[in-house]
């Protein structure tokens, strides 16, 4: 029975870690997703998305440190690269590359959220 106490404590920690990470990841990914959307909107309206792209780059750079505790580091690095590309291609008005970078970020963010969700797909 004495061993049940650490088991209960560990279970609470595990559930807390899951819920905390789940909410944090969803929150960060949703915000980043909105950031990409506003980059696209700004680019279509004004032909440049420098302000939003810089905000997105800073935002990702700020959040990726904590995200690396829970998310595969390779995906985080890929998003970081794609976010930098959004800023770069927006600056040089390289349409094709800009949209490609935006789509890459959106797909990777979606992948992170899907990997975090406990679905039959992610479990099996």
């Amino acid at each position: 029975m004495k061993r049940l106490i650490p088991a209960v404590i560990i279970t609470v920690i595990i559930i807390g870690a899951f819920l905390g990470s789940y909410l944090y990841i969803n929150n960060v990914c949703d915000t980043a997703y909105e950031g990409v959307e506003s980059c696209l909107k700004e680019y279509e309206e004004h032909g440049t998305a420098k302000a939003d792209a810089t905000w997105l780059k800073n935002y990702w750079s700020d959040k990726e440190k904590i995200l690396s505790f829970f998310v595969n580091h390779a995906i985080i690095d890929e998003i970081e690269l794609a976010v930098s590309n959004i800023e770069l291609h927006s600056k040089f008005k390289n349409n094709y590359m800009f949209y490609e970078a935006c789509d890459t970020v959106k797909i990777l963010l979606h992948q992170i959220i899907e990997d975090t969700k406990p679905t039959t797909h992610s479990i099996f």
Partner: protein
Amino acid sequence: MITVILRTAILYIFVTIAIRIMGKKQIGDMQPNELVVTLLLSEIAAIPLQDTSQPIINGIIAIFVLVVLEIIISVLALKSGWVRRLMNGQSVVIIKNGVIDQHAMKKVRMTVLDLIELLRIQNVFDVSTVAFAVLEVNGELSVLLKSQHQPATVKDINSPTNEPALLQLPVITDGKIVHDSLQALEITAKQVETILKNNNTRLNQVFLLTLDRKQNMTLIKMR
């Protein structure tokens, strides 16, 4: 490189904590579910070590989920015979009154050669001398010899000894007094010094000194 070193150190600490929480058991004494957990622990710990792109917390959480499952199952096995039988299996009587139960051997998929080998490990070389041989759930064979083949005990030879067995404890090791042993034997460091004086030796010359409650001692000097 430093990443690998730090990740290894972190996982080492967490695996050690996990094994400490699960409790002390030798590999040979493990029940099937404990063996499974131990095998999985080593595999899970290896993944974040080999692949540094994997977050270390995934490995740590998986380790502790296994620990929790192991504890829950062992507590349930303690409370319920059904769970115990389901998770650990049951002991099987293989030899009864010198006769091998071939049906039981088939059930546990054991060959006669395996049985003879296990008997030999128990210092039994003749099956007919065995009263009972039980194959335990951890794979070990427990053997009870027929009464006429059991070694004689002090009780059998009617020796008048009723004295309790005395445990010798290490009182000095490598020239240093072991204070826990002094407490257990209820003696003082001064008494130990007197013993050393009587044996013409000094504390720093002693490699090992063991004592029991009746002051029976073994003294080995340093070379």
